């Protein structure tokens, strides 16, 4: 029994610990243990079927790839909680629709950003447990009505779409914490802010194209508001100021900056103001701000000495500007208490100093012939050697066999173990390098002598990148171990589709066809309101605007289906007058009068000349289609009609022939006739529906056929691309969706790196403790920070001067004397203000592979 329990608990616990894989080859044999799969940026043109066998999968990312088909069997993985399908512009929206319609998973987080979506599948709002949804950078124009039911939504990103109105849906997201609706020029940001004003628990809101801030802004409870690309003319007065702590304006123009500044200064809650991407001259009035924290990133400012006049500012962020060191020093001297975020004192390093000699990577060897032009693929790189490109040490042309030694460093752990310096100094400032990929290439002849590249010759290198960063500077390490800039690379996203050529497989037209595929023509009915003894006693009748209707009941015009409805029921009701029999009549009275006026205005011009009461069938077809049902409990009737999107249900009594209330006999007779007309109307609609049904199927099939054909064409294009890039592909070689193209003019160590500053430089806690228990009293000899988010590595010799980026995913490797090192991973070990937990590893007893595994998530 005990054995059984033990086995059972072991079986269960094997599923409790997250098992993460990043390669397809790692999946086979471990399907039941795997809980997380990260196959982003792998250059996949087919959705890996191995993923479907992982029945305990909770986290899946296949972002930034090139597959078209999405298997519906993915929906059978009921344990899936996080799904990332972002940056897959070729993804079949058909398959996406089918996936969400038939899935059994209940997601907490879904990322569909940058996937060229023209509409959101109806199955997505049905994911009621969804808390985080990213739909940024798509082509969405509407959100499905059913998104109102997503009451558990906490974070939603709708930036850079083509949305028109989301306020009516956003009203229902009561638990919302963050929303980004910027970059949607059709969204009425004022209306959205009003809707969001009534939500408690909001933390961050991002909007753009704001023209005025509404008065209800006073109730706005979010902690952070980011306003982009807006012209701010007016800011709420002091007594209406909201409770925002952090206010950021990005790329905004202020018509009345003084009034805005005065409002912010009198606010008790706003203590952080950000002014980004603005013209420097427009920032001058903001020197009058009286706040605690000021953020003026990315403004191309070159002088900040005027900021010393701002007495209240104690925190200043000036990254992304061109400020010389002298100006920074002057400000630091004038205001020593001010905390400035501009750069970090990074200790420069040069050359190559591997921390562990036994863990240094061995190069990959490839043998080629030197005389001809050829493309050589080694690891993630492809080298396009021109002919006669190798020379010996004496400068003579070499045409014999060449041994290429290639080592690549793409991940932080590979960079760390290589010991290659990742800093560079420019204008008295040392920067950290964030690597987009690094490799070392050496060429030797058959005797082991080094060869060089012929002067004037360059080698085109295509390097499979680990991230889809912007173009980066290309660096070569010189003989002194210092990085020298050699131009910039070019980023090629293999599967990125030229949006001008997008075949719109399930494009907006199809979606609109789904909504409005049947055009209906009918006579219209205009309400006429008459006075009664009292306001509540007004009479209602309907004036029929007879239209010239097509003769055919149902007509198919290829894309549209047209239905003609004679509507005997409404015609019957329009012959009678009713008296209102309800409460609150003033509002109803006015609404009916408004409808009547609107119909006069809109339909007046549709009247056909020379006729008494005939109108063209074209024009707005919202007509109050009339219906009636008895209200037995109240002894009256309910008259129903729809106008535009509103349904009216009016309690009415029938007026008899003599202008008085109808008698019982009259009412009975009236209702019998009404039922006959209703029956005729019902038969008419059912007859038409029988004709329309096959036409709808036909239309849908035609669209599906076209869409399928377009998808097949896209698949062929992808296969062509794959053939082009993988001409000499090895079976085991991996590829990515993002390629970097650069030219090298020599052999050696080459790097595609960007100089970076940290987002939130954070100093180290002073003490270390062991995960096994107890404090570590020994002083570390060095601390290396592996920044997994920016792909950078920095080493500090002095613990007191060490720092890391608090916003990145980090690994610390702390060196002590001897072979023991401490490893901290911020997703595993704990850190607080007082100490950092370290997992102690004896590198003398651990293989390189096992050590690297410890550094990976």
């Amino acid at each position, binding site marked *: 029994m005990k054995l059984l329990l033990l086995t059972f608990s072991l079986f269960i616990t094997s599923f409790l610990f997250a098992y993460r894989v990043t390669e397809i080859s790692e999946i086979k044999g471990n399907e039941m243990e795997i809980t997380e799969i990260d196959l982003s940026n792998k250059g996949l043109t087919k959705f890996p079927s191995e993923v479907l066998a992982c029945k305990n999968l909770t986290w899946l990312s296949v972002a930034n790839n090139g597959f078209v088909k999405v298997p519906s069997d993915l929906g059978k993985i009921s344990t899936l909680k996080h799904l990332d399908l972002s940056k897959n512009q070729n993804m079949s929206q058909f398959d996406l629709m089918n996936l969400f319609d038939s899935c059994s998973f209940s997601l907490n987080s879904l990322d569909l950003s940058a996937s060229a979506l023209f509409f959101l599948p109806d199955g997505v709002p049905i994911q009621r447990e969804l808390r985080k949804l990213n739909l940024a950078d798509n082509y969405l124009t509407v959100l499905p009505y059913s998104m109102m039911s997503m009451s558990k939504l906490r974070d939603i990103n709708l930036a850079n779409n083509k949305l028109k109105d989301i306020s009516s849906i956003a009203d229902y997201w009561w638990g919302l914490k963050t929303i980004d609706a910027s970059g949607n020029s059709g969204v009425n940001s004022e209306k959205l802010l009003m809707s969001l004003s009534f939500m408690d628990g909001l933390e961050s809101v991002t909007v753009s194209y704001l023209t005025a801030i509404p008065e209800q802004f006073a109730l706005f409870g979010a902690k952070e508001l980011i306003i982009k690309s807006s012209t701010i003319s007016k800011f709420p007065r002091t007594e209406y100021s909201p409770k925002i702590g952090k206010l950021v304006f990005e790329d905004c123009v202020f018509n009345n900056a003084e009034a805005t500044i005065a409002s912010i200064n009198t606010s008790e809650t706003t203590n952080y103001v950000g002014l980004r991407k603005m013209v420097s001259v427009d920032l001058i009035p903001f020197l009058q701000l009286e706040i605690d924290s000021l953020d003026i990133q990315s403004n191309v400012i070159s002088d900040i000495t005027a900021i010393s006049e701002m007495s209240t500012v104690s925190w200043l962020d000036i990254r992304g500007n061109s400020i010389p060191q002298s100006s920074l020093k002057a400000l630091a001297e004038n205001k020593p208490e001010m905390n400035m975020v501009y750069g970090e004192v990074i200790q420069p390093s040069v050359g190559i100093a591997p921390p562990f000699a036994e863990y240094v990577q061995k190069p990959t060897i490839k043998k080629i012939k030197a005389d001809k032009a050829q493309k050589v693929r080694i690891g993630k790189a492809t080298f396009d050697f021109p002919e006669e490109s190798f020379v010996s040490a004496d400068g003579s042309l070499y045409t014999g066999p060449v041994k290429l030694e290639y080592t690549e460093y793409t991940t932080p752990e590979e960079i760390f173990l290589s010991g290659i310096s990742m800093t560079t100094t420019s204008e008295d400032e040392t920067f950290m390098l964030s690597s987009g990929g690094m490799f070392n290439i050496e060429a030797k002849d058959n005797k082991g002598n080094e060869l060089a590249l012929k002067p004037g010759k360059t080698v085109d290198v295509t390097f499979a990148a680990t991230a889809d960063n912007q173009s980066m500077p290309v660096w070569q390490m010189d003989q002194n171990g210092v990085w020298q800039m050699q131009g910039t690379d070019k980023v090629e996203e293999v599967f990125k589709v030229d949006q001008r050529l997008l075949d719109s497989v399930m494009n907006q037209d199809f979606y609109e066809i789904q909504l409005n595929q049947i055009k209906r023509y009918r006579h219209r009915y205009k309400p006429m309101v008459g006075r009664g003894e009292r306001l509540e006693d007004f009479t209602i009748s309907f004036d029929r605007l007879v239209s010239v209707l097509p003769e055919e009941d149902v007509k198919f015009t290829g894309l549209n289906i047209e239905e003609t409805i004679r509507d005997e029921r409404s015609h019957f009701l329009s012959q009678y007058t009713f008296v209102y029999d309800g409460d609150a009549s003033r509002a109803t009275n006015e609404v009916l009068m408004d409808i009547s006026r609107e119909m006069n205005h809109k339909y007046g011009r549709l009247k056909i000349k020379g006729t008494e009461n005939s109108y063209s069938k074209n024009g707005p077809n919202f007509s109050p289609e009339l219906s009636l049902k008895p209200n037995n409990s109240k002894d009256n009737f309910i008259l129903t009609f729809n106008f535009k999107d509103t349904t009216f249900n009016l309690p009415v009594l029938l007026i008899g022939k003599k202008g008085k209330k109808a008698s019982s006999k009259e009412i009975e007779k009236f209702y019998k006739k009404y039922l006959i007309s209703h029956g005729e109307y019902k038969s008419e609609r059912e007859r038409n529906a029988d004709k329309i*049904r096959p036409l709808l199927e036909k239309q849908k099939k035609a669209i599906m056929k076209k869409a399928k054909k377009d998808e097949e064409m896209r698949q062929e294009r992808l296969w062509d691309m794959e053939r082009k890039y993988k001409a000499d592909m090895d079976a085991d070689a991996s590829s990515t969706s993002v390629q970097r193209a650069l030219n090298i003019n020599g052999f050696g160590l080459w790097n595609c790196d960007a100089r970076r500053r940290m987002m939130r430089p954070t100093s180290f806690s002073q003490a270390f403790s062991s995960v096994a228990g107890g404090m570590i009293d020994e002083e570390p000899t060095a601390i290396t920070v592996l920044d997994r988010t920016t792909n950078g590595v920095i080493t500090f010799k002095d613990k007191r001067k060490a720092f890391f980026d608090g916003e990145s995913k980090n690994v610390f490797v702390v060196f002590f004397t001897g072979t023991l090192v401490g490893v901290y991973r911020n997703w595993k070990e704990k850190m607080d203000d007082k100490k950092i937990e370290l997992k102690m590893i004896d590198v003398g007893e651990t293989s390189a592979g096992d050590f690297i595994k410890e550094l990976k998530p």
Partner: protein
Amino acid sequence: MRIILVYISLFAFANAYSQNRKFLVHLNKAYPFLVEETSGGSSKIDVEDFDRKEISGYFISAANGWIESLELKRLEQDSSLNKICNSAVLKFSSSRFKNKVYWQREQKNFDYALKLAKVPHRRFVSFGIMVDLLDLEKNEKFFFDRRVKTSDLSLYEGVRPKIMNENHPDYVEPVPLEAKSEAQLCQAFLEQMKKSKAFNKLKKGNYSQIGISVRIEEKSLNRSKRPFLYAVVIFSGKQSPKFDQPEKIKLSLSGYDE
């Protein structure tokens, strides 16, 4: 003269207008109530301590008794109708009860009152009647004398005698007149209802509810007048039978079903 006429008409209008308003204001403040339906007995009506609800109960019972004798369906008492009748009997002026034309004009008010009180019936008929309280045949003579204390109503049978001095040897004590008994009052009420042809209307319409309220006319007490009371009766019922709902239209086209 013209100015006087203008003033008189304005006064009359204001009076009429204010009366409607008084009725509606009272209706708005009042609460619906039910009375106990009991048959009237032989005990005399106490004019000084007049219980309106008790008398209303006698009238409803009498009316239902008569309705049943006509082999018609018994009427159920409705608290909202009682409320409307109560406000009407208290706030309408006496002219409404005396003149049928004036009474007809009040039907709009009743219609509105039914709507305000949320009565679930739209067919009604109302009656405003005056019921004689004095237990004396109509053509019989009587006289009023406050000094003689033998009658609660201060009314005595016959012609006023010439000798009213008690100490005179030829003094004849007058015969005091009393109010009707409960049963007599119910009978008088029924007769007035028959005169108004109320029960005929019952036969024609589908009435199911009744409301009654009464008020004694104070100005007819302790006067040389026959004391009487006002009663307002409303019968109400459904104007239409129970209709079936129209059949739904089902089309089964995507996104379009009624």
